[in-house]
């Protein structure tokens, strides 16, 4: 375990190596601060590039009665229009299941749905022209409510159920029974770089796509399909995204497809960049959920049975909703043993944009319901919520999940105990209670919540990755793999793996754009799996080349293979004799040894039997815990986060600075989801929170003034890359501690007797409403 502060900062100039475990900066850090890091919109456009704008539906549900684009076509600078009739290939670009029309000319299923595309000689001309479309609609009233959708059986996919033991009987016999329902809000990704693609037509139907996407292979496939071309004619190039967070897993593809269609039609390069408002209106969000629990427990607050229902609102099409609701179900236990469990998950359809992946992928929504239950049990019994949580943590002989996977519980137990001590939980609890007794209007709250998050794609075939490694004759190395860089430092980590494997300086390794013509058939960079999968694939490629070089050197020097060692940019055949890496490469080239290799990896041990709802969907679990302290104003519902302490398990860290960055960033993003980030649709199905002026992500002063983040450094028991653990998504859920602390502060107004309802996001308005409801409840009793 170590904090970042204790780790001496190393930069490449100070310490040349930069292998696994060192805190080297992000590989693009210099370009970021200089403004030279190139994003798609920064690429100098080829001569004659056209700029496209989307004409979207103004209504949320109904039919197009008439579509008149004459004024659009006649607008200054306009070169071409594109409608559904211009699509030579597939017109449905649903990523897993059908349901996502590329354009529509009849049915409208959500506000902003693309109807046509206009291309002009400038972006402004295209956008101004798009406003001139004359469209008549037969508008219907959209259905936006998830529970109504479930009652009407408007389902995107069949419901799923996981069971352990005999829940109904155990519930009936439980001495204490509680139930509750809550609304869980969605979340806008608000990546700072919006959706953008540049399509450049080549010869003979070739198409090169620059896009900001977490899933280049899927973009390649969908572009090929809409163009009615084989995949080998489409190349996707993706150097970096200005943030993804799941919002560019499937949602980048439509814009790439539209740009490609327009480029194919005009023979000119086409750039399509969504203005922020279009981006917010036309792309999917984190799924809103409605969750219910009915639990039974004993007098000590130990759970005996948990009947949990989660309803994921998928919007108009399946997109990734099936897997997202599955993951919500897989995390409805979070870190707690449910001896008898009955978990049901529904995927309902409503008339909004199709909701999609967002960091945590349903997991956070599922976890909230059981964390709510922990607090509710504590209030019912008059205990501290931390005691209830500890009593229910996975433990010896209490280690089977509702989907029958065994949990390695020791880490969780140790984490919680250590954080409880290092954060001084009990002394602060006492101080807060005392402070609250002396403060009539302002109240403080405290909560410790754990996280256990399953690592692997639950769609099994995605758990594979490829890499391509070239060593050039000067010893410099070019690295390519299927993962995409969205800021998470994936390229840095994977390059560190290669540097360690070959014993060379990190500067020797150049990471290039992710390209479908270098590594084919890749999985999305998602599910926190980027470094687990691509790190292993790159290591395999490096090991192959290392083997070839070793064989060559062993023969040349007539020494056994076991004596060859790669380190410090040298290759050693005994303790004193070595050749530089570059020299060996040169010699190997002259001896006609291949200096290029691919690597491949697939995750072992995972399986899931959907019929039985049993298996091992996850290779392992990433765990962590957080303590948050808040202060609320009972007159206005305003609040501030005062302090957060985090202890998080990343296995053996590949790069502590990057891992801590993921933990802090994930936590703050999760806090935004649960507090100020409110999606508002009106009754007509229009998104009102459609700009950063009306949708408020955390700003700098929302970061708690005291923010202690530590790594719980213990090797992953599974054979992951250098025994590290995935870190992208799990920390987001540490923010549940903030929500729970808000409930704690509100509860203090009832002397901790009432467990308040507090739907998310817990805006000041919702906090005040919870306070008022609690006061009414008190008056009534």
């Amino acid at each position, binding site marked *: 375990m170590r904090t970042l502060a204790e780790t001496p900062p190393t*930069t490449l100039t100070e310490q040349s190596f930069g292998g696994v475990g060192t*805190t080297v*900066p*992000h590989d693009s*850090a*210099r370009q*970021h*601060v*200089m*403004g*030279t890091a190139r994003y798609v*919109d*920064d690429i100098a456009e080829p001569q004659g590039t056209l700029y496209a704008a989307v004409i979207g539906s103004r209504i949320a549900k109904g039919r197009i009665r008439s579509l008149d684009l004459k004024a659009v076509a006649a607008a200054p600078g306009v070169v071409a229009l594109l409608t559904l009739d211009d699509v030579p290939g597939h017109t449905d670009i649903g990523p897993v299941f059908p349901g996502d029309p590329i354009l529509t000319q009849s049915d409208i299923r959500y506000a902003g749905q693309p109807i046509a595309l206009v291309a002009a000689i400038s972006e402004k001309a295209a*956008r101004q022209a798009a*406003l001139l479309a004359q469209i008549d609609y037969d508008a219907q009233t959209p259905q936006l409510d998830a529970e109504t959708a479930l009652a009407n059986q408007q389902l995107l996919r069949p419901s799923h159920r996981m069971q352990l033991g005999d829940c109904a009987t155990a519930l009936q016999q439980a001495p204490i029974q509680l139930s509750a329902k809550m609304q869980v809000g969605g979340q806008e*990704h*608000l*990546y*700072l*770089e*919006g959706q953008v693609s540049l399509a450049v037509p080549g010869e003979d139907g070739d198409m090169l796509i620059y896009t900001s996407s977490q899933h280049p292979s899927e973009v390649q496939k969908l572009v090929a399909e809409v163009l009615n071309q084989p995949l080998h004619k489409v190349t996707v190039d993706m150097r970096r995204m*200005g943030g993804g967070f799941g919002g560019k897993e499937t949602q980048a593809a439509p814009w790439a497809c539209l740009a490609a269609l327009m480029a194919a039609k005009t023979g000119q390069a086409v750039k399509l960049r969504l*203005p*922020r408002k279009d981006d917010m209106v036309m792309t999917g969000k984190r799924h809103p959920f409605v969750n219910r629990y009915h639990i039974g427990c004993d007098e000590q607050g130990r759970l005996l049975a948990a009947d949990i229902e989660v309803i994921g609102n998928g919007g108009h099409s399946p997109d990734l909703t099936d897997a997202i609701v599955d993951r919500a179900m897989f995390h409805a236990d979070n870190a707690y043993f449910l001896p008898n469990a009955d978990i049901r998950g529904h995927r309902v359809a409503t008339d909004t944009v199709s909701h999609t992946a967002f960091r945590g992928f349903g997991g956070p929504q599922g976890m909230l319901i059981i964390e709510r239950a922990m607090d509710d049990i504590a209030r019912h019994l008059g205990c501290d919520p931390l005691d209830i949580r500890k009593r229910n943590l996975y433990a010896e002989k209490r280690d089977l999940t509702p989907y029958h996977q065994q949990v390695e519980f020791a880490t969780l137990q140790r984490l919680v105990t250590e954080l409880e001590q290092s954060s001084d939980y009990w002394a602060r609890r006492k101080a807060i209670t005392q402070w609250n007794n002396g403060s009539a*209007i*302002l109240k403080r709250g405290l909560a410790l919540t754990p996280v256990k998050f399953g690592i692997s794609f639950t769609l099994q075939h995605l758990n594979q990755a490829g890499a391509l490694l070239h060593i050039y004759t000067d010893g410099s190395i070019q690295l390519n793999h299927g993962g995409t860089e*969205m*800021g*998470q430092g994936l390229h840095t980590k994977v390059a560190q793996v290669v540097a360690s494997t070959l014993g060379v300086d990190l500067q020797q390794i150049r990471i290039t754009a992710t390209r479908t013509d270098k590594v084919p058939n890749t999985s999305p960079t998602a599910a926190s799996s980027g470094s687990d999968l691509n790190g292993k694939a790159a290591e395999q490629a490096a090991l192959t080349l290392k083997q070839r070089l070793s064989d060559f050197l062993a023969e040349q020097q007539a020494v056994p293979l076991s004596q060859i060692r790669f380190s410090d940019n040298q290759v050693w055949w005994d303790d004193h004799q070595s050749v530089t890496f570059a020299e060996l490469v040169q010699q190997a080239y002259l001896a006609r040894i291949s200096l290029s290799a691919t690597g491949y990896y697939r995750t072992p041990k995972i399986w899931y039997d959907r019929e039985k709802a049993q298996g091992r969907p996850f290779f392992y679990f990433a765990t962590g815990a957080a303590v948050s302290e808040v*202060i*609320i*104003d009972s*007159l*206005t519902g*305003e*609040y*501030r*986060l*005062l302090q957060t302490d985090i202890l998080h398990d990343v296995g053996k860290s590949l790069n502590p600075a990057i891992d801590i*960055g993921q933990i*802090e*960033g*994930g*936590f703050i*993003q999760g806090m935004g989801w649960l507090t*100020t980030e*409110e999606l508002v649709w009106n009754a007509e199905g229009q998104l009102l*929170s459609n700009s*950063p002026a009306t949708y*408020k992500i*955390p*700003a*700098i*002063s*929302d*970061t708690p003034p005291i*923010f202690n983040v530590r790594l719980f450094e213990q090797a992953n028991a599974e054979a992951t890359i250098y025994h590290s653990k995935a870190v992208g998504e799990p920390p987001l859920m540490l923010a549940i501690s903030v929500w729970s602390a808000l409930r704690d502060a509100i509860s203090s107004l009832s002397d901790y007797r009432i467990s308040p309802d507090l739907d998310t996001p817990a805006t*000041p*308005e919702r906090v*005040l409403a919870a306070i008022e409801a609690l006061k009414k409840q008190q008056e009534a009793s």
Partner: protein
Amino acid sequence: MQFMLNQTHIQLDECAPDTTLLEYLRTHLVQRGTKEGCASGDCGACTVVLAESGGDGLRYRAINSCITYLGAVDGCQVITVEGLSHQSGQLHPVQQAMVDQHASQCGFCTPGFVMSLFALTHQPQEPHDTTPTERIHQALGGNLCRCTGYRPIIDAAKSLLSVPLPDAFNEREDHVHRQLNDWTAINEDGCITLKAGESRVFASPRSSEALLNCLAHYPQARLVAGGTDLALESTQQLHSLPQLIYTGRVAEMRQISEREDALVIGAAVTYSEAEPILTHAFPALAGLLHRLGSLQVRNQGTLGGNIANASPIGDMPPVLLALDAQLRIRDAEGVIDMPIREFFTGYRQTRLPPGGFIEALILPRLQPDSFLRIYKLSKRLDDDISAVCLAMHLQLDQDRIVSARLGLGGMAATPARAYQAEAALIGQPFTPEGIRAAQRALAADFTPLTDVRASAEYRLRSASNLLLRAVLEYQGHSSLEVSYHAHTG
């Protein structure tokens, strides 16, 4: 017009008048280090720094280039991220601090942060006891980062504030200052800054008289002050604005004068410029000014613009209503002073005469027995628009309310006084019991809307509770705002 882009002199006459600075940088010059995140001044990714002649040196201020019209930077130095590092590749100290602290992840917001930090490190030391954390929050509150959670950026900023390093800009300051002053001299009489054909102009009159002439000559022209709201018509609604008259160079509108009984603040004075004198005269205003837009917006936005704009959610009008401020309005007929309470007539409607403009604001000073409190409620503390903004101005005699003025924003189609609540306060003791009738009267004064920021119920309930907060603060002599406690522990 002419300006310096980093160290390059740019002379430009023909350009569409509603071109934004960001559009000019990214599209015309293909300098793409400066990013577009929202094109509405809400994210800070496009932040650049303007250096202007101010007194005996240069004054640096961070602005959002996405909502700044190109014509407004006439005579300035525009510093962008491309201009910071040395040609040798050596990073500017601000850039180096960001690298050292691992303060970038996806990197898209980073150029904006770098520029805000650059501006921060070039501010004169603040005279009052602002903590480094407060300075950092103020300087970076308008820059959104979705990746890092801000902690490493805060650490980078702290490291820069603890050891200020002179940079190449300090060395070149005198030279640039002279250059800008020379241009000011040349430009003194010039009115047209940019044009595109005969009818599309960006005019920058230097005096009230010249401004009146411009308005007479281009009766359809739009007045642009900071432009932080008007520019959204260009970037969001994509309207063409063929004629713009910029007030930022009108001498009379740029003056601040202190009278015995009142402050007179030119309508084109920015929030940042007015802040020291306003917070000195009205200490209760400090908290609001720090939360009004972002620093970038306060560096551009003006008091006059906020009033003329007549938005129901502007934060200054409620305060000005509570202070019973006057507006100095000039038109071809001459000058009149109008009480601000008579100015707003409906949603974005005012009594501004055609061809006229607000020249200055007159803010009466507080009396010794004045009690002034200003509260803003929003989802996010920084850079958010009020759900409710309440300014309460009482005259008290031995805890009894002698006179009362309540200005509220977010409660109606215009910023408005709560006349019935005021009446219910007068003569009452300033106690929880004494304000009860006024709390109830708010519901008679206002029928607020439910919108994306808050429900009608929340607006009424919280506004009523804010009256109670004011009483409790008066009685307890301490702040009940959670943000105050977040910093003091």
